[in-house]
């Protein structure tokens, strides 16, 4: 299997561990991730200019199309954005024409011949859960994990086609494969608040805290993410914005690729665990029980 790897803007500098851990866990399954000269997925621009958002995304699609590679992205926001652009390009002929005219300036064109995948759907569907179960050498028994779905991959479902938008299970299935126990939590499908960071911090943090308290009340040891922005929010932002007296109650966040990598027995360094702001050692007893962890 070979995919064009769409990192998005934040991974290289802010969340390098997501890239390294993704590459580390994909390698044993024979998945090759190819780097192309992608640009921004377009999402940040959608607030201001619709057409520049579509064009940015479409250019990425066209680049992958030129190489005849499907795209896989570990970021749910990028996933949603690329899927949206795909949807609009299919739906609106005038838009398709105009975007293709601009793409043609650099010898590109969009035909819609490739697919966009999220990391989880590749794991779950293309690699398949049985293969993942088979790759586990250190099951993470005793760890209660709250799966945070991330909005932009899940909704609107008629555009993103990710999973059942109201009762998705793909993430829990992936977590179960590692031996950890997915917890059911009321706010699992809610927003992490990151889209509002820098725009309305009070609101952004309020959204995040309603999720972390819910995860804690539901008995989760950690929140598991599969999205660049969600991870930044629950990890770096939570850590920076939680005042001292409440720091003990922070619920740490872990990337799914790190979780999977640990259960596959991959070396911690390749997973970049130490790069997470909130140390997973803080997971306390549950984590320490893990066979071979630390």
């Amino acid at each position, binding site marked *: 299997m070979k995919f064009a790897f769409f990192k998005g*803007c*934040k991974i*290289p*500098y802010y969340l390098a561990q997501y890239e390294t851990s993704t590459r580390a866990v994909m390698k044993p399954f024979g998945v090759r991730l190819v780097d192309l*000269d992608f*640009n*921004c997925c*377009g999402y*940040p*621009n*959608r*607030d*201001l*200019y*619709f*057409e*520049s958002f579509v*064009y*940015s995304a479409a*250019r990425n699609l066209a680049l992958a199309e030129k190489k005849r590679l499907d795209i896989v992205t570990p970021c749910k926001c990028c996933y949603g954005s690329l899927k949206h652009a795909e949807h*609009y390009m299919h739906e*609106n002929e*005038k*838009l398709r024409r105009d975007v293709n005219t*601009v793409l043609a*300036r650099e010898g590109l064109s969009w035909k819609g011949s490739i697919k966009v995948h999220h990391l989880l759907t590749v794991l779950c569907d293309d690699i398949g859960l049985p293969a993942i179960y088979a790759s586990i050498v250190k099951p993470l028994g005793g760890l209660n994990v709250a799966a945070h779905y991330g*909005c*932009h991959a*899940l*909704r*609107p*479902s008629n555009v993103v086609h990710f999973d059942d*938008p*109201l009762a998705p299970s793909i993430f829990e299935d992936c977590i179960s494969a590692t031996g950890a126990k997915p917890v059911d939590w009321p706010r699992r*499908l*809610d*927003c992490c*608040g990151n*889209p*509002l960071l*820098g*725009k*309305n911090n*009070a*609101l952004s943090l*309020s*959204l995040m805290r*309603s999720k972390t308290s819910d995860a804690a009340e539901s008995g989760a040891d950690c929140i598991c993410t599969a999205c660049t922005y969600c991870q930044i929010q629950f990890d770096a932002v939570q850590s920076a914005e939680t005042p001292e007296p409440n720091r003990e109650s922070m619920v740490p966040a872990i990337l799914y690729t790190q979780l999977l990598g640990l259960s596959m027995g991959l070396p911690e360094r390749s997973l970049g665990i130490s790069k997470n702001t909130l140390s997973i050692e803080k997971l306390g007893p549950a984590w320490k029980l893990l066979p071979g962890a630390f």
Partner: protein
Amino acid sequence: MVKTLLESTFLFVCLYIALGICAFGILFRIVRWFASDTGPRAAVIPAWKRVAAAAKGFITTVFSIRFFLFFKVLFLDVLLQTRIVKTDLSRWIMHICIFFGFMLLLLMHALDELVTKKLFPEYFSTLDPFQLLRNLFGLMVIIGVAIAIYRRVRHRGPMLATRYADRYAVIILAVIMISGYLVEASKIVSESVFNRMMKDFSSASGPADEDAIRAFWSSEYGTVFADIKTPITPDLVAKGKQLNDESCASCHVPTKSAFISYPVSRALRPVAMPMDRIKADVIFYYIHVLACFAGLAYLPFSKFFHIITDPLTMIVNGMSDKKKVNQAGAMPRRAMELDACTNCGTCSRYCSVAPVFQMIGNEEILPSRKISMISSLCSGKTIKADELREISEGAFICTSCFKCTEVCPTGINLQDQWFAQKDLLAEKGYPLPHVWVKEFNASEWSDRIRAGESSRTRDVDTIKGRYYNLTADSDVFAPCIQCQTCTNVCPVVAAHTGRKDAVDITPQKIMNLLRLGLNDLALGSRMVWDCTTCYQCQENCPQGIPVTDIIYELKNKAYGKFKNIDRTADIDSKDDAS
């Protein structure tokens, strides 16, 4: 003979003037590094703090393990310019040609007294390999300049903005090179130069010998004589060669090894005599030297300055820790980086949001453009409001991906510049649109929109989207049955952050404002600008209304209208209840 540089009082004075200007210019620019407000909260960081921070940074780096990075940076980045080779081979070739050609000419030729003679006591400018190398180095520079000009013409456009100062620099460089070759060529063909040499150095005795040498120089060295009396026979040339070997060869290798100047001299033959009469060689010499002085004087004010700033930047950034940004120390560094930028356009080519520029045409999105705007932003110049608007749009479209910093051949910490720019813009009243939009409430925005529109009737045409028009199409929102599901699933409405920050209207109320034709009232609402775009409302709407897409469109339309509104102007708010 022309007096050497040191012997001509005029040139001597010129040199000192040029040196003076250059030194003053460099000093001026360095002072400016510490005086420029290249970051936020400049008022509370006076220059002495910046100097202190820079000094402290210097000292701590020198006495830390990081000092060893110095050699790595110097060798790989400064000398071999590996940062360029990563992104653009032709640029690297261009740059290596100019850099090495020019530096070697400088050292070997311009500073021959100080450098070459010290290293090679037998040095003489008309001896090989020096004559050959001089031509070669000159050629390198010319090739480099040609590539540079070709690239500028070929990749013209906003990605590779050419400044006027850049053009003058290239012109001076070209003049120096061309005049240099012309000095050499005109000397080759000059009879009077030959005669002077004969007078000073020749051991020839008698006209026969002189004729022989003249014959030899005429046929082999390319000198053009007004009248060669005797026919040039091979014997005469052979004799001339012999005499030449005795008295000239120790200083003059055959001019053919000047493989550029010699062909040029051949081309000059027809006009050699008149040229010689007007002492063209001296004129060219003066042009050459004065152009060099001009270049020297101009150095701190032109692109040439990067010869100094680039290595400095590479060294400073290569050795310091990018993650620890201290504003006091960062300010002079940023100012220096602004001087180090050569406007090569690499950053723009790799910019993650460059496609946005393709679509909306705002050049201020492009990093190469931004960096030059930052200079004017920091210089305290008054910038027009609409320009500021464009600049801030460019600043906030940046996604902070660090790609530009990664590829910058000069190693400028561009991302840090952008962060500082954003902060500076926020200080000037241009923060992120999501933030400035809250300077007014929805109602006040609506007043402002109306103040700018003459017609009293509802105006839909100006808020039409190009591809979708959800907010103006009643088929889209009319199916609303007021069930409140959208509001009930909205996490933003649910977030209780106190009345000051609470959303003003709910998604359902937005649908109703649209239905009531009060679109303007929705545009500036907090609900629109605080929407997290989580799509819960849209996914759960039993009537299939694209609520989130509508909110997105409202943001687009609001931004389109608001950005042209002067936020500082007072307007009469119309009393609706009248």
